[in-house]
């Protein structure tokens, strides 16, 4: 099966993928790879640490649908994703 991130990783000289990967699907689902832990969790704001900074996701009725050691999935009405 085709894996987008793996394909990109296979391309040489691209080191940006080493930090974290975020995929926003239609503003309804946000998939994150490489998080380092939650810093805030509420239905309007979910934020987490990543290598070299912090990501803040703002929206409405958001639920953390999945949380593992380095991946997470946010489901809800995602309005904004900011990296600090």
């Amino acid at each position, binding site marked *: 099966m085709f894996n987008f991130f793996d394909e990109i990783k296979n391309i040489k000289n691209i080191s940006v993928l080493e930090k974290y990967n975020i995929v926003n699907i239609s503003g309804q689902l946000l998939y994150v790879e490489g998080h380092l832990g939650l810093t805030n969790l509420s239905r309007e704001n979910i934020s987490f640490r990543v290598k070299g900074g912090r990501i803040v996701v703002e929206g409405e009725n958001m*639920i953390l649908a999945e949380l593992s*050691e380095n991946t997470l999935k946010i489901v*809800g009405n995602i309005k904004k994703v900011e990296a600090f």
Partner: protein
Amino acid sequence: MKRKKTERKISSKNKIQSRTKITIKSLNQEKKLNILSKQIKLFQIDRREKNIASFEVEDGDLKKTKKLLLENKIEILSVEEHGIKKHLKKLILSWGLISSIVLVSIFYCLQYNLVWQIDVAGTEVLSQSEVSSFVEEQLSSRFKGKIDTKNIEIALKDKYERISAVSVAIVGQTLKINISEAYIPDEMLGNFKPICSQYDGIITKVNLVQGTLTVKVGDIVRKGDVLVEPYIIDTDGEKREVKPEASIEADVWIFGESSHSEFSRRIERTGEKKEFSEVSLFGLKIYSNVKNNTFEHFEYEEREENLTKNLILPLKVKHYTYYETTEIVENKTFSEVQEQKIEEARQNALIYLQESEIIKRETYTIQSAAGTTNVTYILTLSREIGG
């Protein structure tokens, strides 16, 4: 709205995946969730309040999650199981329920194929219980499949001549038997009885409808005599049995009697009496005021009863009553009491009079012998004596 849709999608997915929802209460929840997520994958994390959050874990991780929560001093508010697997597991664990359902199902299937009851309808002369027991004898098996209703119908018709039509059907678990009885005229049955006289008397009127008369007007008959025989002689001279029908009236006599003796003795109580009583327990005399009776002539009565209403102690009290009596000798001639004795005899005869009956004649006879006179009062009435 969107959120609700998303939740619905997720929850239906969870039903299949079989997860357990855990609600926890703790401070600094983000930190606690990070600790948990390092070892367990968490799903549907929802922070309802500042200190309260819920999440789901796969069933395989439940034990580990509980251990981690305990280690990190996180309070568990509730643990709810979800998913088909959980329900199946519960069902499998409920062996008692499953086995009883299976047993009940088997029993139901078996008993549904059996006939439990025989219902007989439409009988008038035939006895329902007799028919029912006959049908029961005909059944080789109680299984519906082995019951031949046609054979039962034939057997019933063969057994009972009175049945003109019969239908046998299995309805549910009942064998329904509908019977139509044939009307058999009495002439065909042929067991007629003659009309007999119910009283002694002289026949005054005869109205024959059917049968052969054995009496005529003016004949004296006694109670039980045959009045009409249950047959006729037809034009060929052959005897043919018929149900006798007739209206036969006769003058019948009713008697009443009284008697009188010129010398009579009778015992009367003087009004003086003496009462004593005796109390006993289990037959042992406890108290008694019984004294010697001083009356020369007396009558004596005795009665026993419980001393108290509650029978904690079965105390019995016995009452003895002595009544003083005297002998009265009377000497009256019949002529002194004649009218009274005749009336007494008449009243004794009137007792036998039926409602609305008209007395045709009244007479009486007086017979005396050895100081005793008997009065016989005779009432002559017209009565239907047979028919």
